[in-house]
């Protein structure tokens, strides 16, 4: 159980293609993250998987059964909304029991399941409260409990952490991940936050303008971006791209270091780096500047670990280097990664 297969799915709103010929298949029990900027179609894709939105074209199957035109209640999926969408007139108990009552489960069985779900998310003491009496974190737990209580085969989450404050978000992320490992239910998670995506996902699906740009593990996405969009969307600050005529040369800011600090068994490339601006961020330093002379795309950032205390000054030039193995080449026209020297 728990596999979603999507083939050639598109969604048109008027003349806009919100989702454009997407193919996607989840693995059993995997945590899949849909990542992209707002308006990239990730939420629309999730809503089509849920059955709330009908695809304009294409097919999809859940657990090997075609569900393209089935209403949500016949898909055995659960969804957590960005707003949590708790029923304001019902107590927490009734909120969690709602999906069970909907399928006509008996009273005693419902009570047991609700208590099980409440215990799992540690909200047993909140069962008699109304949603408006809960804090943001508690609401999120109730929403998760309501989604999990009927043991769906696929679990859909639409930016469930974006309404929490920063401190809570980190602990909620960790909890969510541990919980998903424990129950092992296939999860599709939508976010625009790359830190969330990298931290949570077994695999990440990077989307832009309705299309999938890359599917891969967080490491693949970060180290071997499929195109310049992925290269600059994932990573903060984004990957440096140097214009070299036909190709763009890419390297991560943390691989661009003072020449003495770079060790490359396969060799290094050294540039004179004119520093224009420095930012001290505690654990690290960001150094902004230019390399080369003629090309216009020569602005790069270097990210120095806090342990590297070497003095730098704006307005001066220093020799900086990148190891050859950290260099990526992209086609300038298509933006696609050039295969030579890719992951073997």
């Amino acid at each position: 159980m728990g596999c979603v297969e999507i083939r050639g799915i598109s969604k048109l709103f008027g003349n806009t293609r919100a989702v454009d010929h997407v193919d996607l298949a989840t693995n059993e029990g995997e945590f899949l993250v849909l990542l992209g900027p707002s308006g990239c179609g990730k939420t629309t894709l999730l809503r089509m998987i849920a059955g709330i939105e009908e695809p304009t074209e294409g097919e999809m199957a859940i657990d090997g059964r075609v569900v393209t035109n089935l209403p949500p209640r016949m898909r055995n999926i659960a969804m957590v909304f960005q707003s949590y969408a708790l029923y304001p007139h019902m107590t927490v108990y009734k909120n969690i029991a709602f999906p069970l009552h909907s399928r006509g489960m008996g009273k005693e069985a419902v009570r047991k399941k609700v208590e099980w779900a409440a215990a799992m998310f540690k909200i047993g003491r909140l069962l008699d409260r109304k949603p408006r009496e809960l804090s943001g974190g508690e609401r999120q737990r109730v929403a998760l409990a309501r989604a999990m209580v009927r043991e769906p085969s696929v679990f859909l989450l639409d930016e469930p952490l974006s309404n929490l404050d920063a401190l809570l978000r980190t602990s909620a992320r960790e909890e969510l991940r541990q919980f998903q490992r424990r129950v092992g239910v296939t999860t599709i998670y939508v976010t625009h936050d790359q830190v969330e995506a990298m931290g949570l996902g077994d695999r990440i699906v990077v989307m832009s303008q309705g299309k999938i740009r890359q599917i891969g593990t967080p490491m693949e996405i970060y180290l071997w971006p499929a195109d310049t969009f992925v290269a600059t969307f994932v990573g903060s600050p984004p990957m440096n791209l140097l214009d070299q005529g036909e190709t763009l040369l890419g390297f991560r800011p943390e691989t661009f270091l003072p020449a003495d600090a770079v060790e490359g068994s396969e060799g290094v490339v050294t540039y004179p780096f004119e520093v224009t601006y420095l930012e001290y961020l505690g654990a690290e330093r960001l150094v902004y500047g230019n390399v080369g002379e003629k090309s216009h795309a020569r602005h790069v950032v270097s990210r120095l670990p806090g342990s590297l205390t070497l003095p730098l000054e704006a307005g001066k030039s220093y020799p900086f280097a990148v190891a050859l193995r950290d260099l990526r080449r992209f086609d300038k026209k298509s933006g696609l990664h050039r295969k030579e020297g890719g992951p073997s």
Partner: protein
Amino acid sequence: MSGQPISNRPAYGAGEGFRDRESALAKLMIAPAILYIVAMIGVPFVLAILYSLSDATTGDPYIRIVGLRNFAAAFADPVFRLSLWNTVFFTLVSQCFVVLLSRLLATALLKKFRWKGLVRFLIMLPWTAPISLGTIGWLWMFDSIFSPIDWVLRYVGLLGTPGALLGAGTNLYYLGIPGLAISSVILVDIWRILPLATVIQLAGLSSIPKDLLEAAEVDGATPWHRTLKITIPLTLPITSIAFLFGVVFTFTDLVVVYVLTRGGPVNTTQVLSTWTFFRGIEGGNLAEGAAISLFMFPVLAAVAILILRTARRTEVV
């Protein structure tokens, strides 16, 4: 400079004028509203109580207190008791229909369709017309000879031919037969309140976040289940407001009955407001008229309290 006590320094904004004195300004601005309420509601209410305890007539409006005998006299009159019953009956029946129909209309108007703005405008139209004019229009619809309703019924063969479903007569005499007259009054009552109730219900329905209904859909609820468990409970407070407003308007209405039937035939459609008018003004017995009208007070007071309570209870999502 810094050692000097603050009160010794020149005051900032010393030239403050009347415009800046908020409490005085507030009193001035609220005064017209208070005056209006006192003059238009307070004074007549006190007068009504005084009249109801007196023996004043239109010919001799001097107030001499005679006790509760006007109430006793009013209550002893079978026409009064019928009016009281009619008022309650017309109000409840019409408002039950209004709640149902306005919910249906509001649900339909939530959907997207062509000419939606125009349809909304047309539905609101009866509310913008003066009640008296609208009711006169209905008077023509119910005319004993020229009723267009009868004309249509005759045309489709339901009326006016031997063996027709509604009889062989050429007309139904809507306002001349007790049962039909009562139905006609209730119909116009419904027609009159429906636009307001629809707008209120529309506001209630569109205030439900879309997320909630989608969540219920994903949670496995059928459309019927969603309506019953989500939409109706969430819109109950605002539906009650629509109902209670309708009750106030219909309970106190004089125009519909006065224009359509003048309480007839033989007082079968008489309501408290018309009976007050016929007794107190046309009949000249001011004191008894006042007593009759005061019978509306407890109901209206109760409804007003309910409205205020419900409005406060409205669920904040």
